[in-house]
């Protein structure tokens, strides 16, 4: 890993910390808040690509684990990872990985703007939403002893917000690609 990679990984972990300064919105019917932080893995995947994006979220997980209050609402520590939302937090790392893998394969620097944005939307949705929900819901149903289905239905409440985040990540991904390209590209 080059020093530049190391620094970029740290930067996106720091971006997660900053996103965590925005207060979460708690919902009554599911013990999982709406949080700006789920934008982080999408940004990391779209801008840094799979490897560095994944590592940046792992680094963030480490910060959570050593008890720094870096999750929204000033939470942190192993208790959160073991709690009902732990699956989502771990899912962020794999979400960034999947998002990056897709973006690296679909996005080309020479493409027109619309095609780039569409590719980033696909990457951010499959990585940042589908993958994250998968990890999150499996752990949530296990941890809370709920049946799987009600949790799936309840998580529809996150969709509007997360779709907006997909849009933001895609626009940011394409703007950074134009202004300061970093995304590795694979055939």
């Amino acid at each position: 890993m080059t020093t530049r990679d190391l620094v970029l990984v740290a930067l996106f972990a720091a971006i997660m910390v900053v996103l965590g300064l925005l207060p979460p919105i708690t919902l009554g019917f599911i013990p999982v808040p709406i949080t700006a932080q789920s934008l982080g893995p999408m940004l990391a995947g779209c801008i840094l690509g799979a490897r560095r994006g994944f590592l940046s979220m792992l680094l963030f997980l480490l910060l959570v684990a050593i008890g720094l209050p870096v999750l929204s609402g000033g939470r942190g520590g192993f208790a959160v990872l073991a709690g009902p939302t732990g699956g989502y937090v771990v899912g962020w790392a794999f979400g960034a990985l999947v998002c990056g893998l897709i973006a690296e394969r679909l996005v080309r620097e020479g493409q027109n703007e619309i095609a780039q944005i569409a590719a980033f939307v696909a990457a951010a949705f499959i990585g940042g939403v589908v993958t994250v929900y998968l990890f999150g819901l499996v752990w949530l149903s296990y941890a809370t002893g709920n049946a799987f289905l009600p949790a799936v239905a309840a998580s529809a409440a996150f969709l509007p917000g997360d779709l907006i985040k997909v849009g933001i990540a895609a626009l940011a991904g394409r703007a950074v690609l134009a202004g300061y390209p970093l995304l590795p590209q694979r055939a």
Partner: protein
Amino acid sequence: MLNGLDIEGNSPLHRMPVRGKLIVLFTAAIGLFFLSDLRLLVPALGLAAALFLSTGIGIAEAFRRTRFVLFTVLLVAAANYVFVSPHEAVVVFCRLSILVLLAATITAATGISAFMDEIARLAAPLERLGLVRAADVSLAVGLVIRFVPEILARYHDIADAHRARGLPLRPLTALVPLIILTLKDADTIAMAIDARGFRRH
């Protein structure tokens, strides 16, 4: 919160080894999870506040550092008040506030380099397995702590740039320049790390 800024001092908390402090925090985090008796939680909250102040931080600075998080804790408590019960609201408030105060206490009583040494020690077994370089992990953690205020400072620069040109500040039009400016800073910092030989190759 994560200014990474310890308060200079020599209180018992400052002298306590980092590992000990982290163990206390983990234990508290797990223990509080099972605790919902207000006769214990309320005094514990008082104790946490006292510990925080014992770092010599001063009331004003203590409030400045925690007010934002405490506000969100209040929001979480309010939601519990509405959706669950007043009792649960107070419990949640105490539980989260204690954790916030303990975490803030550790931040205030522990220098970044002490943190990084400890992380390097924790990562050493992984290094022996060839998975990561321990020194890189601790450097990365130090960098995160360095970047948070840097990102906030860049955000202020961008907000100023918008205002100076009479443009409305929209989250998206702020986000992109924010990322690009911090990426540029990151590149310079990467070069500085190499120039100063911070990583052994």
